[in-house]
């Protein structure tokens, strides 16, 4: 274990290399020099590890993965629900409903729809009662109260454009830019 003239060891500096220098390090030129040497030497290796040599390999690998995945379609839940206009019962998948809700959200300047989950909450078929879970990020300085009405409107428009909906509950989760949950609320009709 090498000790610097100031009394600190190289291990001390290595352990704190990702942190900002403390007061001693800021004032100690031995520590300062050692920190720079350690950073420079790992930077060389890191630049090689991040090297461009394998970019093509990554692209080929990603293509292979995608071609394998194209044969593995996810299971889609389907629902029997009556059309609003005629009452005719149709089968509709969750992804179709989500796609309609997403289309509505594409008009929003206040909220970005990150994730949607749809399920019927009534046991009888055809289904007329629905739960929609939306996870959104707020795009502007809008308040939660301001966007909740808009979200309900979009979900109603997406779900109820063709289907007869007697009862709708919307659970809204608002997350920040890092995906941390900021708030959660339930609204419904």
């Amino acid at each position, binding site marked *: 274990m090498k000790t610097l003239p100031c009394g600190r060891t190289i291990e001390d500096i290595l352990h704190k290399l990702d942190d900002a220098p403390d007061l001693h390090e800021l004032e100690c030129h031995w520590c300062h020099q050692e920190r720079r040497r350690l950073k420079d*030497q790992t930077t060389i290796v*890191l630049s090689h590890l991040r090297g461009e040599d394998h970019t093509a390999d*990554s692209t080929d690998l990603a293509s292979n993965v995608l071609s*394998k995945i194209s044969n593995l379609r*996810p299971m889609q839940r389907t629902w029997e629900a009556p059309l609003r206009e005629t009452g005719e019962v149709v089968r509709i998948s969750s992804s179709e409903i989500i796609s309609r809700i997403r289309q509505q959200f594409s008009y929003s300047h206040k909220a970005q729809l*990150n994730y949607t989950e749809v399920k019927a909450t009534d046991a009888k078929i055809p289904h007329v009662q629905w739960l929609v879970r939306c996870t959104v990020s707020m795009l502007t300085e809008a308040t939660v109260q301001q966007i909740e009405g808009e979200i309900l409107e979009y979900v109603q428009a997406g779900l109820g454009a063709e289907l007869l909906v007697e009862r709708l509950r919307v659970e809204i989760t608002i*997350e920040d830019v*890092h995906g941390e949950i900021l708030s959660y609320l339930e609204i419904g009709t």
Partner: protein
Amino acid sequence: MDALEQLAIVGRSREGDPEAFGMLVSDLTPSLRRYCRSFFENWQDADDAVQEVWIKVWKSMHTLQQNGAFKTWLFRMTRHVCLDRIRSSQNRVQVVDAEEFSGQPAPEHLSPEYLAVQRSEVERAWSIVAKLPSTLGQAFVLVCLEGMTYEQAATIANTSESTIRGRVARARKAIIEAVS
């Protein structure tokens, strides 16, 4: 892909959107390859593991509870896949004894003479990482190469932040000794 965009892409992938999932695959495959490479001694094994990871992830996207947890979840799953593959193929697992490794000089196979015969600078760099005890290499790749926080790396490696900090420091020490 910025953080906000990634949240939406992850969310769409959870909904089963293959196009969105393809964007994740394209964006994150280079990172996953590097992480897997820290478990195996060659790119072929690493690439096989990456393929298995993505297929497992696609099949289990619906189990992800929170968009923001995706990256940590992905790397945790990657770690499990790599460890399973190592176990099943009887590949060499380098068991790290932190105390034993600490303070010892770099082993002979990390010497500049040995490394000089490596084909390229990139492979030389990877050979240095590959010769580290496995857990040190993994911690180094997560924190130094992939820019994860100690907290994220600790979650992925199922250990404490202070253990990760120690592993990264020891990895750096061994790497610096190998290149100097």
